[in-house]
């Protein structure tokens, strides 16, 4: 019987130069401290000899154009390429120097997709979409120079309104847990992004973060109180800059009702950096 052996969520621009450019040396120091915690989380993950790592993250309007914006999408196939952005700027530079190609866990991705459609989750599927820093920055920080665990990338539309609801993201996580339980595999799952930053996605509000709201979310996650999280609304997430918490909601659904531990929380004007790990039975 398969099992979720590791579950975590963390910020996903793990690039000291990005935060030094935006916030000065304090930014560099805080993201380095956050990355140090994520590395030790990677050690614990790999010690459990996982077969696959499900990565739930958002697209920053890189993989999908305005041709189609899937609410939720599973990357299928045997390999996935990292995004290649010419003359990359800002957060896109976090990908520089990373390998070009990553193995996928083809069978687990196919089961999540196929059994999802059977269970009422009309997931989109992609054979070609590349993955950006939202996936690879946490994955590479967790693995370092060690071989990367076969991935199952899953996109959640966090930015292009209308987004899926937090409750629906939680339900997707519950579906993933059921698929894993019926499988033969040991699986890790991470959700990436956040915590609070870029409220309302407006330039004049870049530099604001809602620490009070973050602390409320963290308290509910630490204590395993998942009911209030499922009543969050897209409007609340938009106003507080918690758009990417939708990815965390998927992980919460996968491990509910497990409590967890905040491994890192660092307040920057730019963003509240965070790393969280759940305590699994």
């Amino acid at each position, binding site marked *: 019987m398969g099992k979720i052996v590791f579950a975590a969520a963390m910020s996903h621009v793990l690039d000291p130069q990005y935060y030094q*450019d*935006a*916030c*000065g*040396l*304090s*930014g560099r120091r805080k993201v380095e401290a956050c990355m140090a915690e994520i590395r030790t989380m990677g050690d614990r993950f790999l010690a459990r000899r996982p077969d696959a790592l499900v990565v739930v993250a958002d697209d*920053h*309007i890189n993989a999908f*154009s*305005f041709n189609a914006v899937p609410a939720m999408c599973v990357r299928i196939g045997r390999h996935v390429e990292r995004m290649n*952005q*010419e*003359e*990359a*700027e*800002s*957060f*896109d530079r976090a990908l520089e120097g990373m390998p070009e190609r990553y193995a996928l866990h083809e069978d687990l991705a196919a089961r999540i997709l196929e059994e999802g459609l059977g269970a009422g989750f009309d997931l989109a599927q992609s054979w070609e979409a590349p993955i950006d820093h939202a996936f690879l920055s946490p994955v590479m920080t967790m693995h370092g120079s060690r071989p990367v665990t076969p991935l199952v990338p899953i996109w959640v539309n966090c*930015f*292009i309104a209308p987004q899926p609801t937090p409750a629906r993201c939680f339900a997707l996580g519950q579906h993933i847990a059921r698929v894993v339980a019926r499988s033969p595999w040991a699986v890790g799952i991470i959700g990436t992004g956040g915590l609070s930053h*870029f409220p309302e*996605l*407006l*330039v*004049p509000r*870049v*530099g604001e973060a809602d620490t009070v709201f973050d602390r409320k979310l963290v308290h509910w996650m630490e204590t395993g109180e998942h009911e209030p999280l499922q009543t969050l609304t897209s409007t609340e997430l938009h106003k507080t800059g918690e758009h990417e918490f939708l990815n965390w909601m998927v992980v919460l659904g996968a491990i509910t009702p497990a409590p967890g531990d905040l491994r890192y929380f660092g307040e*920057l*004007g*730019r963003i509240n950096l965070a790393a969280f790990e759940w305590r699994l039975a």
Partner: protein
Amino acid sequence: MSRYAVNSLLYRLKKDRAFRERFLADTAGALAGLDLSEEERAAFLARDMARINALGGYLHLVMSIPGLAVHITHPERE
């Protein structure tokens, strides 16, 4: 507001290097025929990414288009 026209243009500016170069060389020409309001067209002509964002352009695009991105910094006190 032409949400689609603004954002598909931003996306093309980010991903299509040849179009980006054309936009930088002849902005009015690159915008010709696009379904933009006067305000939106003026913001693109001024290359004012903050204004484009206020008019509906997605934040992550206006922050990451090579050579045109708005860079917002806010150094923390040590």
